[in-house]
């Protein structure tokens, strides 16, 4: 709360800085802004920046260092019988101290109550000091910047330099995200490959990651051959594409070549809804409705269908990616120049003949690119397979059997267990790395194809 007040006060000061700077600038030139190098507003901004940024940095610094500083100070002031305890005990005592101080818990001992009072007063002092420093800096910055306003001050250039620095910093966040992903995946994967050789992971055909967790227990052997997972992923993604590509492509053709504009304007958004529904909903739908339906259907045909058959998960995933295929195909079909179509009509071709023999071949690279993008989406999809696909790592091509996928295993291995010293947990990161690499490669190829295709008709 205090922090909020301080922030608001600082922000208000910044606002004041802006208006004084502006007024000062106008006063310098006796109300004739044309004599100024920069607009009065820019002088205002410059003062505001001088006023706000150093103060804000102080507050942020306080936020970052307050917990550890307080911890050290409170601990050092504890009576000797408490201070002599191990670090872990101390952290517990410290937690109690904070609970007493902040959440109104009753203290277990006088020492703790004393420490809690100490904690509060220290916190108050530290915060007070920070507030004073921040306010002084803000006022000083304001005064200094205001004092330096003169008609030739290049206020605009300075303000813009600051803003540009911020813009550049923001644009590097995306880079850092990628670096973060790659490093964290690589780092944990390397630790994993320390336990399990790369070749076994990539080419082994047995997946049984549940290892013993005590020395006097016998778990499973801990086989980490990921081939069944890759095969399962491919099987489910393949089924999804078998569903989505014909449906998506045909809908795209119908929508772009045949449908009346009114039909199109109503139906297209409705199809897009399919892409907007959260995947957890699809997972629930697959597990609750589709999987039992397929099983019963199969049983009535005399087939044995596993309850979490690859078919059910793949089918529902296929429904989910229809809009990806259809909207991407729609784009590329619309991009085929009208002259090609007119040429075909001129030779007497019917519309469907034109589409089949002229438009589709011309749009094929783009469509292939779209299908690859959809495939990468299907491979990385998690919730549907977590909820509707199995856990047993079967190596099979039969869509009626249960298979498991890379994403399912990542979730299963990591949920609940947070120990980072066993190959079991680290395996999830190795799987993540494989997934990242595969989807990245698919995307690179797809984007390359699509771009090349666009250039052709531009």
């Amino acid at each position, binding site marked *: 709360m205090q922090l909020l007040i301080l922030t608001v006060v600082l922000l208000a000061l910044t606002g004041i800085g802006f208006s004084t700077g502006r007024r000062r600038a106008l006063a310098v030139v006796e109300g004739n802004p044309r004599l100024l190098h920069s607009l009065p507003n820019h002088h205002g901004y410059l003062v505001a920046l001088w006023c706000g940024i150093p103060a804000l940095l102080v507050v942020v610094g306080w936020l970052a260092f307050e917990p550890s500083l307080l911890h050290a100070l409170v601990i050092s002031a504890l009576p000797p019988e408490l201070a002599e305890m191990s670090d872990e005990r101390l952290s517990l005592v410290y937690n109690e101290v904070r609970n007493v101080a902040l959440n109104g818990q009753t203290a277990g001992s006088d020492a703790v109550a004393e420490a809690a009072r100490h904690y509060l007063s220290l916190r108050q002092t530290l915060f007070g000091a920070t507030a004073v420093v921040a306010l002084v800096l803000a006022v000083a910055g304001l005064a200094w910047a205001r004092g330096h306003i003169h008609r030739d001050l290049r206020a605009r250039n300075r303000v813009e330099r600051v803003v540009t620095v911020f813009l550049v910093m923001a644009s590097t966040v995306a880079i850092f995200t990628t670096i973060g992903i790659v490093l964290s995946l690589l780092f944990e994967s390397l630790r994993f490959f320390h336990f399990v050789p790369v070749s076994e992971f990539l080419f082994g055909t047995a997946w049984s990651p549940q290892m013993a967790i005590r020395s006097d227990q016998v778990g499973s052997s801990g086989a980490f051959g990921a081939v069944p997972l890759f095969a399962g992923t491919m099987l489910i993604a393949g089924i999804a594409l078998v569903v989505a590509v014909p449906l998506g492509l045909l809908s795209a053709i119908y929508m772009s070549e045949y449908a009346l504009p009114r039909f199109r304007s109503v139906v297209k958004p409705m199809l897009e*809804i399919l892409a907007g529904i959260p995947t957890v909903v699809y997972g629930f739908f697959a597990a609750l409705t589709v999987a039992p339906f397929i099983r019963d259907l199969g049983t009535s045909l005399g087939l044995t269908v596993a309850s979490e058959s690859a078919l059910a998960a793949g089918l529902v995933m296929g429904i989910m990616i229809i809009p990806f295929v259809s909207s991407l195909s729609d784009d590329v079909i619309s991009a085929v120049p009208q002259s090609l179509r007119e040429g075909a009509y001129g030779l007497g071709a019917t519309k469907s003949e034109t589409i089949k023999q002229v438009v589709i071949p011309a749009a094929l690279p783009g469509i292939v690119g779209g299908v690859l993008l959809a495939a990468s989406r299907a491979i990385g999809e*998690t919730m549907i397979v977590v909820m509707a696909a199995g856990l047993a790592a079967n190596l099979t091509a039969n869509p009626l059997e249960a298979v498991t996928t890379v994403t399912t295993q990542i979730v299963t291995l990591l949920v609940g267990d947070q120990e980072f010293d066993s190959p079991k947990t680290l395996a999830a990161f190795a799987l993540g790395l494989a997934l990242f690499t595969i989807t990245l490669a698919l995307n690179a190829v797809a984007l390359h194809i699509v771009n090349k295709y666009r250039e052709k008709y531009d």
Partner: protein
Amino acid sequence: MTETTQMARLGAVRPTAEIVAARLKRRHNAERRFRAVGLGAVLLALGFLGILLFTIVGNGITAFVQTYVRIDVTFDSALLGIEGDTGPDALAAANYQAIIKQSLYRTFPEAKTRAEQRQLGAMVSSGADIDLRKMLTADPSLLGQTRSLWLLADDDIDMAVKGHIPRQQGIAGNRLSDNELRWLSELESRGAVETRFNTLLWSSGDSREPELAGLWGAVVGSIFSLVITLLVSFPLGVATSVYLEEFAPKNRWTDLIEVNINNLAAVPSVVFGLLGLAVFLNILGMPRSAPLVGGLVLALICLPTIIIAARAAMKAVPPSIREAAAGLGASKLQVVTDHVLPLSMPGILTGTILGMAHALGETAPLLMIGMVAFIVDIPATPLDPAAVLPVQVYLWADSPERAFVERTSAAIMVLLLFLALMNLSAILLRKKFERRW
């Protein structure tokens, strides 16, 4: 001579016009077939959507009401275990379950054996005692008195009343025993069963008991996460797009950033979850299950979406506007802040809302950062453990009780409603402010 033979030969085959007509008919049929197949594909896709929504609504609509049963309850201080001591602490810790069970036994004295009494006791929710506690703490003079009260029914009773559990007696393996079904019918004939609007679904957090489980904790968790996501990703996204679109020189470095953003947009969300686990939780030591961390991970996920949308919106602003402004002496930044940004803001906001909608439905990365624990309390700050709506759907979908199927579907309906509102506002925004150049 040759002419006549030729004529004869031609006469033997059908005239060209006829051939053409037949072929044309075939071709037109193929045309119609192709068109029908196309329409069929569209309708099939829409059909899937219809089935999906129909299943969810059909399963979930009943969750918005809840069954209550009326029982005469006696506040017996001996059973409550508070003889002599009626201080607020004693009242809070009293055994309200016991008086509910006693009242049930009195209503149906035929339940004699332990097994029967267990069945009878299970007809009222194990959470019904909260209301009694509230009543008694508010008015201690109720002690020793008997009141006719509406109590929250157990989930199985609720399911039977709503028709999700068969009411016929004698079905082997029914969730409700014949005894319970008989008692339920008797209560109904006395007018002591009623369904009311389900307020608990909107006001309480998660619970192991379906009749007590609510969405409010998850809704609050979702709001916290989304606010964090918005605060982080919107400024960063807009700043990045401004830089790339208006300032960045065309060189290797900016190419790298561009490729990077396009690739990030395609990275599976579960990988972002791994990043969150490794960096935010393990290295930076942030709390598990907290909306703060969830919001940060979601911000990274929807950053590329926002950047791509914002750049498209800025690209659509015609260069003439920039040139005109520059011609009047505006600096590059002034051109951006005074002309390009205001003109492209509707597009940027639309993209942001769509990104937020995407973040709202995201589940997998949140599982990685521990947002799957059983959390009852409503989070008060973004640092408290919390669930979010899609994770709540996932948790409930895994629960075995029949009543959770209904709750899950209801949670999905709420989630879809939020998504629909967000998307609708994006569409309206685009319609209202879209400008064609």
